[in-house]
């Protein structure tokens, strides 16, 4: 499904500011894998997401989807396979456009955008039906500007926009981190339901240790640009937050430092 082989990425190479964001990352996701990713600040988690989605190019290494090398494709050409939700609720939607227009743009993912009507009757009823599944009443506000929605509502909409065309890969980068606990819980629940129902291959960065253990069938831990631990389904069952943190310290030699970390 998704494969990274020996991917590296430096920032400010050759300057005193040089940062190794990713070092020789090799990772293979099987179809239907739901992988949670944890790691300290600056471990390279977001860079990993950006390299998969094509926002950045790797300095070395290959990214493959279904066995096809895609590292030369620009972001907009990869998006047919990749759905994304960002940490910032502002980032995933266009605030001055309506809910239905935002959905229409997501609906056009992977198709060529021509002079067909963006929102028509058929699409509108599809959108209404999909929005209803979120269970937060957005289906009655199709023509409201997205800028009027709360952070949680926006994030729910972003999640729907990232998933309802069934992308091969779903990338979630701390997409609940900017929300209050109740809303974060709602988005987490929606994420779990949607991923399960559509059987999406998912990579989810989270700062919530308990969530990282509870969700998904695999957990990877990153530190200083490397994947230091890859925990499969079988071992994930009886994992606890303390064990996880202990394991992190043991391998990396330092405590997990994350300014947003939530233990459980």
């Amino acid at each position: 499904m998704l494969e990274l082989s020996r991917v590296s990425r430096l920032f400010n190479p050759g300057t005193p500011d040089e940062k190794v964001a990713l070092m020789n990352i090799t990772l293979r996701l099987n179809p239907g894998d739901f992988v949670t990713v944890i790691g300290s600040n600056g471990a390279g988690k977001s860079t990993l997401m950006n390299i998969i989605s094509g926002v950045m190019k790797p300095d070395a290494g290959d990214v493959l989807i279904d066995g096809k090398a895609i590292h030369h494709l620009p972001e907009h050409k990869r998006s047919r396979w990749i759905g994304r939700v960002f940490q910032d609720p502002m980032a995933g939607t266009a605030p001055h456009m309506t809910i239905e227009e935002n959905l229409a743009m997501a609906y056009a993912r992977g198709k060529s955008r021509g002079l067909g009507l963006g929102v028509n009757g058929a699409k509108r009823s599809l959108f209404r039906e999909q929005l209803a599944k979120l269970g937060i009443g957005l289906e009655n506000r199709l023509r409201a500007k997205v800028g009027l929605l709360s952070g949680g509502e926006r994030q729910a909409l972003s999640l729907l926009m990232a998933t309802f065309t069934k992308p091969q890969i779903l990338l979630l980068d701390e997409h609940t981190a900017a929300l209050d606990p109740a809303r974060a819980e709602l988005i987490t629940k929606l994420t779990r339901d949607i991923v399960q129902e559509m059987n999406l291959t998912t990579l989810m960065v989270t700062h919530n240790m308990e969530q990282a253990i509870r969700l998904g069938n695999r957990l990877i831990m990153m530190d200083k640009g490397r994947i230091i631990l890859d925990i499969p389904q079988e071992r994930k069952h009886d994992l606890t937050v303390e064990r996880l943190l202990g394991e992190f310290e043991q391998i990396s030699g330092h405590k997990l430092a994350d300014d947003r970390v939530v233990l459980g």
Partner: protein
Amino acid sequence: MLDSLTGAIILGLLYAFMALGVYITFRILDFPDLTVDGSFTTGAGITAILISHGYSPLLATLAGFLGGMAAGACTGLLHTKGKINGLLSGILMMIALYSINMRIMGKPNISLLGVDTVVSSLTNPWAMIAVMAVVVFIIKLLLDGFFHTDLGLALRATGDNARMIRSLGANTDSTKMIGISLSNGLVALSGSLIAQQTGFADISMGIGMIVIGLASVIIGEAILGARTIFFATLAAVVGSILYRIVVAFALRAEWLKLETSDLKLITALIVIIALVVPTTRRAWKQRNMAKRRTSELTASLAGASSKRGGSL
């Protein structure tokens, strides 16, 4: 009096294409495009030279439109592929166009007096107004329609949240190019029509156009608002007409002692006021709100502590 009113409305309608063009770059793409000052003349120049060489006025007008689109495409290329800052790409193109326009026209001024143009058969000013109003409205509706297509939505999102629309698969370099080209095509169309209406094309006729376009968009929005695309484009058209009416009356009011050359200063002032007032008003409102809430909060704290004090 009536003459100057009809004259102003006609000019307003002809300049409305330019205002629509400026609306596309300034509001939709969030890209203040200075190419306008050059591409307006490009449209006028191409049309004038073709008409004076005996080509059909309609064809000459279309050629003017296409010339503007080409100029816009160049600005778009500088900005997207050359990664040159937006303002600077526009300025560079505006300067380059001065020479190009001179080459197109061959001389600084081409007269179209006494030759057939697309507007020469409309001698009655009210007929002219009626026809132009219909044409402007059709173009406006076509634009509205375009902005509701899949491509149009992507173009709007490019100005609203470029990162998002890229992640949804649109090439924002292309959408910007399309928007800037379309915008300058409309600006050039406006220049072409103005040349035909006033009877000449002049190398310096485009100077300050961008500011007039901005003023039109802003005046229109102040009156009609911009809740939907329909109202926003309507606002550009209405703003353009109002601007011309205000200018006509300001010039007629002798006690104002205005010279035609003062117009650019006044227009710049309109734009400055329109840009500054909303921000200051917002900041002022916020400060007042903060003050009020602070005094409310301190009052409730004081109330609570005095009550507690009383019960002791």
